[in-house]
């Protein structure tokens, strides 16, 4: 059986299914028909299944773990972002409306992988041939996928938060101001703001009205990032241990090391900001978005443009 062929066929199938599922998810956002949601879910799960087949077949073709270069890493990342969204955002947090955006992220990830670093399945170069590839890379992909979900939720939070504020401002103009102390402070923590979906009387904002409440997005973003942070920490530590074995130093300011440290620091800043008065909400969210951008740089820019020891893009 030609595993390489199976893998690349299912890779294409995955992109198309994710694309279809993304369109259906957005259609559900616009139309709010339950049938559309069910259909979108079925296609998403089919896409994830195709993605998994593609990953496994790739591993069989190369006769090793299927995350030895950037192309394979991207395939696994796309899979984990979709599955992570289904399990954590839809399953645990019960937010149905984020999946379309995660699918968009995965489609872009796969498309970039196919365009910029396509490689045939091949054995690993000696420096990568270690059991640490299982530990370090699995942790790095898992952490990245969770940070990506957190990043997506945070960006949506910022959009939604703005529209909620506007709606609130409009509402405040209509309703006479409360007698004591003003209505709601602009800097109040978000779980204190009224929830337009929950409270029936709140005005439906025009823009971003299809999204869940800012408070719900904020909560899920925080939880996912707080879950990702120790995994990322572990990935960096495992990477350092591996670097010590393979390159003779645990830390050498290689571009990948540098950027993973930068990403770690920014998300550490986010977690601190969350527990600091006056930094909750928008300010913390902006830090998380910067962290998300830093993650993308760690992931793409370092491999594509900056020469370093982690330049495995070409195989």
């Amino acid at each position, binding site marked *: 059986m030609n595993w390489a062929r199976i893998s690349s066929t299912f890779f294409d199938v995955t992109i198309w299914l994710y694309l279809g599922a993304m369109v259906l998810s957005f259609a559900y956002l616009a139309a709010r028909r339950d049938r559309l949601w069910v259909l979108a879910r079925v296609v998403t799960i089919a896409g994830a299944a195709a993605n998994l087949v593609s990953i496994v077949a790739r591993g069989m073709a190369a006769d090793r773990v299927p995350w030895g270069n950037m192309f394979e890493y991207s395939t696994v990342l796309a899979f984990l972002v979709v599955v992570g969204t289904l399990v954590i955002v839809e399953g645990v947090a019960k937010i149905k409306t984020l999946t379309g955006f995660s699918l968009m992220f995965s489609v872009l990830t796969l498309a970039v992988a196919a365009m910029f670093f396509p490689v045939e399945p091949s054995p690993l170069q000696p420096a990568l041939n270690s059991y640490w590839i299982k530990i370090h890379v699995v942790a790095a992909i898992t952490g990245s996928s969770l940070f990506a979900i957190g990043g997506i939720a945070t960006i949506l939070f910022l959009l939604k938060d703005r529209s909620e504020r506007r709606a609130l401002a409009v509402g405040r103009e209509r309703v006479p101001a409360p007698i004591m102390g003003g209505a709601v402070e602009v800097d109040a923590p978000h779980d204190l703001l009224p929830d337009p979906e929950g409270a029936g009387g709140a005005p439906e904002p025009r823009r971003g009205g299809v999204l869940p409440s800012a408070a719900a997005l904020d909560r899920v973003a925080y939880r996912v990032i707080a879950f990702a942070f120790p995994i990322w920490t*572990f990935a960096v530590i495992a990477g350092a241990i591996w670097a010590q074995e393979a390159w003779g130093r645990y830390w050498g300011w290689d571009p990948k090391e540098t950027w993973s440290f930068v990403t770690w620091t920014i998300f550490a800043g986010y977690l601190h900001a969350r527990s600091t008065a006056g930094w909750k909400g928008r300010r913390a969210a902006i830090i998380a978005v910067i962290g998300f951008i830093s993650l993308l740089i760690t992931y793409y820019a370092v491999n594509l443009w900056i020469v370093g020891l982690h330049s495995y893009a070409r195989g």
Partner: protein
Amino acid sequence: MTTSAAPTLRQSVALVWRTLRSMRTALILLLILAAAAVIGSLLPQIPNSPERVGQYLDDHEFWGTMFFRAGFFDVYGSWWFVLITALLFVSLGACLFPRTRAMIRAVRQRPIHARELDGFRHHAEFRVDSGPDEVAVIAARYLRRKRFRVSHEGLGVAAEKGVLREVGSLLFHWAFFLLLLGVIVGKGTGFTGRAVVTEGETFVDALPNYAGQIRTGRYFGGDFTGAGLQLLDFDDSYRPNGQPIDFVSRVRFLDREGRPTGTEVIRVNHPADVEGLRVFQEGFGWSPVVEVSLAGQRLWSTAIEMARDDAPEGVPATAMPWRGAIKLTAPQPDVMITLELWPDFRAFANFQLTGEPTSMLGQFDPYIRYSVYTGEIVDPALSTIDTTGLRRIGGSDLHAAGTSTFDVPGAGELRLSFLELRQYSVFLISRDVGIPVVLAAAILVLVGLIPSLYVSRRKVWIRAEAAPGGALVKIGGFALQRKDAFEEEFDRIVRGIGGREAVEAQPEERVRTS
């Protein structure tokens, strides 16, 4: 008494100290450190790629000079990077001490009793048939079983859980502090050097033998071990498509007196330890053993460690020839012989015939082309091939085990014998005493991180009052984190001590206490 507008020295110091003591300062310093690291990843760095720094300086005259002055080409060794690290170190320590004291106090202290219970975010009231003493005992026992820290006084119970959050957070921060310490001490007192050893030869750990390929820490004392490393043989293996499988060096370690202490196999990802040094497989290359005599006098008979030409885009590195030089300063004038080695003659022949590059994955009828120069050698180092000030007087070629002669005008007959082709191995040798500390600290970072993120602190108070036919139980509580999850836990506690269900707090109370 005079008051001056300018703060006194004492006030300034106090202000600086107060600023350093805040966790926010530590965090900002960490972010500055990250920003500095970004500069280091975007600009070429002298320790990693000096030639790219030179290129940059040539291409960007103004900014290059500015960046150079600011130390941007050696970010991690610059004074301001060290300063930020030192400030971070001090700041982190300064804010951790008081926090640790407070934490120890909080752990030692028994939970404090509250007077008013209906002001809390969660509260409930219910009646039970048993007496108030009994209810308080039941409640205390129940909460202890649920691993709350309980203080039971008469009819009141105060309980709290989740101190582990702060303990974990402090452990995380102290471990990070320790990690920083391990890095500073380890890198500061250690070194990393590169040793090039040809098969059969021995490298001794001493400063001159690193031939400048060494980076020592700021506080490195210069105490090299004098241990020897003899390369017995080197083996590189490839797949048919030219992709490497493994690079393996078999070495014998020798002590200071040159007595063998054991043999080891060093491979990629499998370093060896000797006398506090770690030896890593880093690279390899070819060393032709060439004997040179001039006018019947033998002037040279050792292996020459060759460097491979950089491959142009699209050509495999293994297809490129290797270059080296023999520099003879004894004769008058100086004689320099530059060598171009093709480990596999077929690749050379094919290149001559078709212009197509061919990978050379092993030796096969190795072939050397050489040029002879005379004049005055400016740079006697063997690692460079610099022909300035020299005149090429001719050249020829050689196959393995072959000999070729060449007439140097005014100096006599130059005789070259290509005795054999060996390989050399490049080892990275490092000493870093901080490694165990850094590793332990890294593990503690993770151990502390998990409770500091996932454990939530919550407090519960119970007060029983005598009431006709039993007791009236009041219960209140709140959680500092994970407030949703606490709602269910609170209901469970209420049921656990005999109540039916909690009375939901009013919305406005939520706003007030959360």
